[in-house]
C-alpha cells in the first residue's frame, strides 16, 4: 500500500519533468494567451500607424533645444500668466464643487437601495455611461458653442463629465451601505430624505471625500488643457506662447501647472496617509 503510493507520486513527478507545480495551470495558460494576444495586437497596431521613426529620431536634437528654450523662464508677462492661471484654478474648484453636488443628488436616484424603480436606475446608469464615454474637451467645445467664450463654458463642460463620474462613484458608495441600516430607519418611519441625510450620507462621507480629491486632480489637468482647444485659462497661454515661439513665457506657464499639480498631489497623499 505504502509502496504504490510512493510509486504513484514518483510517476507524477516524472510526468511533470520532476517539477512540482506551484501555480494553477488553467489560469497560467489564460494569462499566457492574454499576454501573447496583447503583444501581437500591439505590434500590429504599431505597424498599422506607419510611424516614421527615422524622421522622429533625426529631430530629437530639436526637442532638446525646445526644452532648453522652455527652461529660460520669461517673467515678462507674469501678471497675465498668473491671471490665466487663477482662472484655471477657479474653473477647477467650481467645476468640482458643482459636480459633487449634482453627483450626490443624481446618485441618490441611481442607487438601487434608495430607488426601488428598476427602470430609473438602469436608465440613469446608461445615461452616465454615455456621458463618461465622451472625452471632456468635447463637452467643453459644445459648451463653448452654446455659452460663448469664458469660464462658464469651461465649468459647464467639465461638470458634464465630472458629474457622470461622481454619480457612478457615489452610487457605488451608497449601495455599499448595509441594507440593515436602511431597514432600521424605515422601521422607525423615517422618510426617504431622512434616510438619505442621516444614514447614507454619513456612512459614505469618507468615500465621497476620497473621490472628490481624486477628481480634483483630474479636473485640474483637464481644465489646464481647455485653453488649448479654444477656451480660456492657462492652456491658452501655453499653446499661444509655444505657437508664437515665446518659449520662455510658455515654460513659466508649464512650471505653474506642474507646481500646482504637484502640491495638490502632496496635500492629498498626506491627508490620505494621516486621516483616511
Amino acid at each position, binding site marked *: 500500500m505504502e509502496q504504490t503510493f510512493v510509486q504513484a507520486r514518483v510517476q507524477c513527478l516524472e510526468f511533470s519533468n520532476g517539477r512540482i507545480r506551484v*501555480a494553477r495551470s488553467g*489560469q497560467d495558460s*489564460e*494569462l499566457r494567451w*492574454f499576454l501573447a494576444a*496583447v503583444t501581437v495586437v*500591439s505590434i500590429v*497596431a*504599431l505597424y*498599422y*500607424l506607419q*510611424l*516614421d521613426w527615422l*524622421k*522622429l529620431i533625426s529631430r530629437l536634437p*530639436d*526637442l532638446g*533645444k*525646445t526644452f532648453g528654450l*522652455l527652461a529660460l523662464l520669461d517673467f515678462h508677462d507674469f501678471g497675465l500668466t498668473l491671471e490665466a492661471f*487663477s*482662472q484655471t*484654478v*477657479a*474653473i477647477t*474648484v*467650481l467645476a468640482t*464643487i458643482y459636480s459633487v453636488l449634482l453627483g450626490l443628488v443624481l446618485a441618490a436616484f441611481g442607487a438601487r437601495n434608495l430607488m426601488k424603480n428598476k427602470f430609473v436606475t438602469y436608465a440613469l446608469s446608461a445615461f452616465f*455611461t*454615455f456621458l463618461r*464615454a*465622451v*472625452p471632456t*474637451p*468635447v463637452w467643453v467645445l*459644445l459648451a463653448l*458653442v*452654446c*455659452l460663448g467664450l469664458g*469660464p*462658464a463654458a469651461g*465649468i459647464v463642460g467639465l461638470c458634464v463629465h465630472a458629474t457622470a463620474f461622481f454619480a457612478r462613484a457615489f452610487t457605488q458608495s451608497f449601495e455599499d451601505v448595509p441594507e440593515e441600516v436602511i431597514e432600521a430607519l424605515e422601521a422607525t418611519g423615517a422618510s426617504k430624505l431622512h434616510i438619505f441625510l442621516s444614514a447614507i450620507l*454619513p456612512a459614505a*462621507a469618507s468615500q465621497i*471625500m476620497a473621490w472628490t480629491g481624486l477628481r480634483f486632480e483630474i479636473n485640474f*489637468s*483637464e481644465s*489646464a*488643457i481647455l485653453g*488649448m*482647444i479654444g477656451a480660456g485659462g492657462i*492652456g491658452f497661454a*501655453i499653446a499661444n506662447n*509655444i505657437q508664437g515661439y515665446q518659449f520662455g513665457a510658455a515654460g513659466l506657464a*508649464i512650471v505653474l*501647472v*506642474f507646481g500646482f499639480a*504637484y502640491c495638490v*498631489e502632496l496635500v492629498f497623499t498626506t491627508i490620505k496617509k494621516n*486621516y483616511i
Partner: protein
Amino acid sequence: MPEKISIMNPREKQVYTWFLVVVLVLFCLATYISRFNPLEVLWEQGEFWKFLFQDFLPPRFNASPVVVESILVTFALAVSSSFVAAVFAFLFAVFGSTSLSPWKGLARTIRGFATFLRNIPTLVWAFILFSSLGIGTGVGFIALLISTFAFMTRAFIEVIDEVSCDAMEGLTACGGTFWQKVCQGIVPTCLTQFIAWFLYCIELNIRASTIVGMVGGGGIGLVLFSYIKSFNYAGAAGIILVIAAMVIMVEFLTNYLRRKVLT
C-alpha cells in the same frame, strides 16, 4: 437641558468641519475670480435646447473610409502606446521600487522623473513635442507614451512595494540576485495587478488619444475638431456617438478580460 451625545468620532468630525470650511472659502474665491453665476446658465438654457435640437440632432453618420480609418488610428494609438509604455514602465519600476532597487539613488531619481512627467498634462506634452518634432501621428504616439509611461511607473512601483514584501524578504534571505528576485518574486506575484493597470490605461488612452488627435495627433479627434470648427454640428454629433460607442466597447472588452484573466 438634555445634552446631546455625539455619534461621530470627534476627531473625524473635526476633519469634516475643516474640509467644509476650506471648500466654502475656495468656492467664494473661485466664484469671485471667474464671476461664474450658475443661474445665468439656467437662464440661457433655451439657447442650449435650441442648439441641441436644431443643429445637433439628428446625428448624421458618415461612414466614409476616412472616418473608419481615423477610428482605427485612434484605437491603434491607444493600444500600442499603452503596450510600449507598460514594457518601459516595468523596467523602470523594478529599478524604482525602494525595496527592490539595487541602487537607492537611482530609485529616487526614477520616482522624481516619473512625478515630473506625470504632473504635466498629456496635451501640454503634445504641444511641446509638436513645436519641435512637427505635427503627426508619431508625435501623438510619443505624447501618449510619455504620460502613460509616467502613470504606469508610479502604479507599478506601488504594486511592487505593496504586494511583494514577504516574497522579497524570503528571496533576499536565500541570497537571490536582483534578476532572480524580479523573475521569481515580482513577476508571479504582481503580474495580475500589472495587467489590471494596463487595461485601465488602455481605457484612459482611448479617450486621451481622441484629445491629442484634436490638436494635431491624427485620428478621430482631428475629424471631430474639423467638423465642429466648420459648424457641421450634425456630423460632429455622429462622430461623438461613434467615439462613445468605441469607448464603451473597449470598456466592455477590458471588463471581460479582467474577469477572464485576473480571477
